[in-house]
């Protein structure tokens, strides 16, 4: 897997950071726009073939970026859990003229199957776009790119700190749960017993996290968090190459063609 090469000399910090893959090194905003435009194609073109093709393109991109396995596992899980359920419910419950398999009060109809295929593939193509973006772009790079566009560093802080807090609080919660179990609080048994365990597990975790914010505020203030003026960062993003702009424009043209075609009924 491609990881960041070690930074050895001070001069390395002045060069843009590379993730060792041309796709991964694209500017996050380029990536965001291109993926969005490609996803638009899936929505604009009627039928279930276009969304499936778009989803396949996303998988291909993930493999080219060297993140294929991670992405495939994530997206297959979504197809199985969300996509399949969306399809089956529609196929079974939407009423239509051409009944394929009658099942008592409900029936599998041609209309239901077609509607289910279209709807679930479109939702899955959109899901594919979202998961692809966040598989390829580390959150830090994304917030850094947004800061370059003028988004407040405070907003970046809130987003990045949220991810960190989820991990931290999750770990503490599990530790407290084990500690409370050791003190004799039942966490297994009937519903009432399990529900009663919820509060003693979570209250200490939440309360300590909240009182820690006070110290955090002071600590960050001491590190000039509230200072005005421009900021520097330890990591530099590569400048946007001309080729990247071409890619974005091409994707935009593709989306525009798909929308025009969808409206005029080319497909």
């Amino acid at each position, binding site marked *: 897997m491609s990881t960041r090469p070690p930074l050895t000399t001070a001069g390395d910090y002045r060069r843009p950071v590379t993730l060792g893959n041309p796709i991964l090194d694209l500017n996050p905003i380029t990536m965001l726009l291109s993926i969005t435009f490609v996803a638009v194609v899936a929505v604009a073109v009627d039928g279930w073939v276009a969304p499936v093709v778009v989803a396949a393109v996303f998988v291909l991109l993930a493999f080219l970026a060297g993140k294929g396995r991670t992405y495939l596992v994530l997206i297959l899980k979504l197809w199985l859990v969300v996509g399949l359920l*969306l399809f089956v419910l529609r196929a079974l419950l939407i009423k239509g003229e051409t009944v394929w398999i009658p099942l008592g009060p409900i029936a599998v109809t041609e209309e239901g199957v077609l509607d289910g295929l279209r709807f679930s593939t479109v939702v899955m193509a959109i899901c594919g776009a979202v998961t692809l973006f966040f598989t390829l772009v580390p959150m830090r790079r994304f917030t850094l790119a947004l800061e370059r566009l003028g988004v407040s560093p405070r907003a970046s802080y809130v987003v990045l700190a949220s991810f960190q807090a989820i991990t931290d609080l999750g770990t503490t919660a599990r530790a407290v749960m084990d500690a409370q179990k050791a003190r004799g609080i039942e966490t297994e048994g009937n519903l009432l017993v399990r529900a009663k365990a919820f509060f003693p597990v979570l209250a200490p975790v939440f309360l300590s996290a909240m009182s820690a914010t006070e110290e955090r505020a002071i600590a960050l203030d001491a590190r000039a968090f509230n200072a005005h003026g421009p900021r520097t960062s330890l990591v530099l993003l590569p400048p946007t190459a001309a080729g990247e702009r071409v890619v974005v424009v091409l994707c935009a043209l593709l989306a525009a063609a798909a929308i025009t075609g969808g409206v005029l009924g080319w497909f």
Partner: protein
Amino acid sequence: MASNGKFATLMRGYGRLTLFLIPIGVAINFVGGQIALLLKLPIYLDSIGTILVGAICGGLPGALVGLLSNAINSITSPPTFAFAVLNVAFGLLAGYFGRLGVFRSWWKTLLSSLGFAFIGGFFGALITIWVFGGLAVGGGAIVVGALTALGLDVNTANFVAQIPMDVLDKVPTVMIVYFIIKGISKRLLVKLPLGWVYLGQPNPNKPAPVADSAKA
């Protein structure tokens, strides 16, 4: 003045601690949901952080917690984002209730769950109908599917299934929020935007309420 954009202006009226409580609120939403799953409870309990931050910091920070929670959730499960507006509404309503002092007494808190459940159940059902044509994902979908199979039409099935489910979810949620607020130390409360409500003090911003000064 890149470091002093709209976001900073928006948050200034809420004091400095609020900015640091938003990530904690997001994490509380997630961890609450995870522990509910771990204890195999049949409810979500994934909006504790939104309502808590709304109740102690105000509607806007609460709404931000809700928006951010759903945005982060949708990275791995994108359909979640369609329901972000519910979590935002929980935050705003919690801010309004907080200002009224609802979370100071347990029975008012208990009653407030009806408001949250109405938003979650009624508007949740509406979103399911509008965005997913009545057949969305999650545990509720199976119930809706079963009700439809029994002869109810899809729209009625959504309301019948979701409103009671949401009452069951929101009653424990608001009670946990109530007890957590009771457990917050006074020295922290005094620094929070709505801390005066819980310390039994008069509104320090009476001539200019917090929400208005934040907009200015």
